[in-house]
């Protein structure tokens, strides 16, 4: 996975699978300070813009018989709305805008990242960790605010035999604190791995005999990546809903 350079003089195989993830200043060169506009910033802004175009411009006509863009907006709305309602119940609908925000941002960033030479903000742990930690903290605080100490019942599995409960409590506690880790690394890892694999196949294209196979492999991987982009956004959202359900109804 490391950035490997073999030099052009030795068969021309050059692998830079991780270079595409480098965060660089968008204007000019130099160090990346916290306020610098980087390529990551640019593609995040495009994701916000895409969300705006799909959901706001798409629905601007408010027509009863929807246009194509409005259908897309309504489809996205209905998809997330139904997910929240099915998993969290009616009380969860209060948090629907938060979940919709996460879903739209991830899905737009993922799909925009599939454009060749694009940068994918969601392939960075910095981005996904912040989102996962936000979900984790929200759920934990919300759980204690809504249920008080009854929220700790989440770790005390009442349906298990009494002797097993302390052990289960430890396991539940560990799995609870591991949630943001798996939640964030799943998204970034999937997106990063897919993009890196495509880059590796692209590196093989330098060999003339292999290049057709390489092109076919890139095409296939790209198709898979389109699927993964959506599914990972879906999984991130649905796990957010599941965690939120724990905060709203801590009983097992």
């Amino acid at each position, binding site marked *: 996975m490391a950035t*490997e350079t073999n030099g052009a003089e030795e*068969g021309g195989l050059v692998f830079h699978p991780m270079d595409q993830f480098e965060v660089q200043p968008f204007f000019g060169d130099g160090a990346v*300070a916290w306020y610098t506009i980087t390529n*990551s910033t640019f593609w*995040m802004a495009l994701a*916000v813009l895409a969300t705006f175009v799909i*959901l*706001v411009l798409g629905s601007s006509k*408010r027509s009863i018989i929807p246009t194509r863009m409005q259908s897309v907006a309504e489809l996205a709305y209905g998809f997330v709305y139904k997910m929240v309602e099915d998993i969290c119940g009616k009380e969860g609908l209060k948090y629907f805008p938060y979940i919709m925000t996460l879903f739209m941002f991830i899905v737009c960033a993922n799909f925009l990242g599939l454009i060749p030479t694009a940068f994918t903000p969601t392939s960075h742990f910095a*981005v996904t960790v912040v989102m996962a930690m936000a979900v984790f903290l929200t759920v934990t605080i919300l759980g204690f605010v809504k249920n008080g100490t009854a929220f700790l019942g989440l770790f005390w599995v009442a349906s298990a035999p009494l002797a097993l409960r302390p052990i289960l409590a430890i396991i539940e506690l560990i799995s609870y604190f591991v949630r943001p880790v798996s939640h964030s690394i799943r998204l970034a890892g999937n997106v990063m791995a897919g993009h890196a694999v495509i880059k590796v196949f692209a590196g093989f294209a330098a060999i003339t005999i292999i290049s057709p196979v390489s092109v076919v492999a890139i095409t296939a991987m790209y198709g898979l990546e389109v699927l993964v982009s959506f599914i990972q956004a879906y999984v991130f959202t649905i796990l957010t809903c599941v965690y939120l359900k724990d905060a709203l109804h801590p009983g097992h």
Partner: protein
Amino acid sequence: MATETQSDGLADAIGVDLAEHASTPGMPQLDFSTWGNQIFWLILALIATYFILSRVALPRIGAVLAERQGTITNDIAAAEDLKAKAVEAEAAYDKALVDARAEAQNIVAQAKADIQADLDVAISKADAEIAVKAAESEKAISDIRASAVENVKVVAKDTAKEIIAAMGGKADAKTVTAAVTARMKG
């Protein structure tokens, strides 16, 4: 990833590479110097998205969906109304048809009864006339017959007297009359 041609130069290559990226680890994701930047812009992007969604997009789409649901419900209700009206109209039409048919039958029956009555009157009148005429005729016939019988009697008496006189006998008028009357009866 590595091919056989690479194996020799690999260590060097990595060494060179690491030297090039001395400031950053191999994975850009683990370069913590850029985390602050990304987190800052991410939070900004998420807040922007949140406000776009919660202030504009979601209420609007929700309203459109609710409105469409309302329109569909109304349309279905209107369709139900129209269907009920159509059924009503059909029932009314059927009723009118039945009424009309009944009336027509009534009129036909009435007309038939009237005609029958007229006919009966006419027949009875004709019968009466015929009866009168028949009686008259009968009377005329009986008169004729009576006068004929009288005439026969007279002729027979006269003839009988004449025959008797011609035969030389003396005709007693009373005897002849009695004889003729007796014969006429027989």
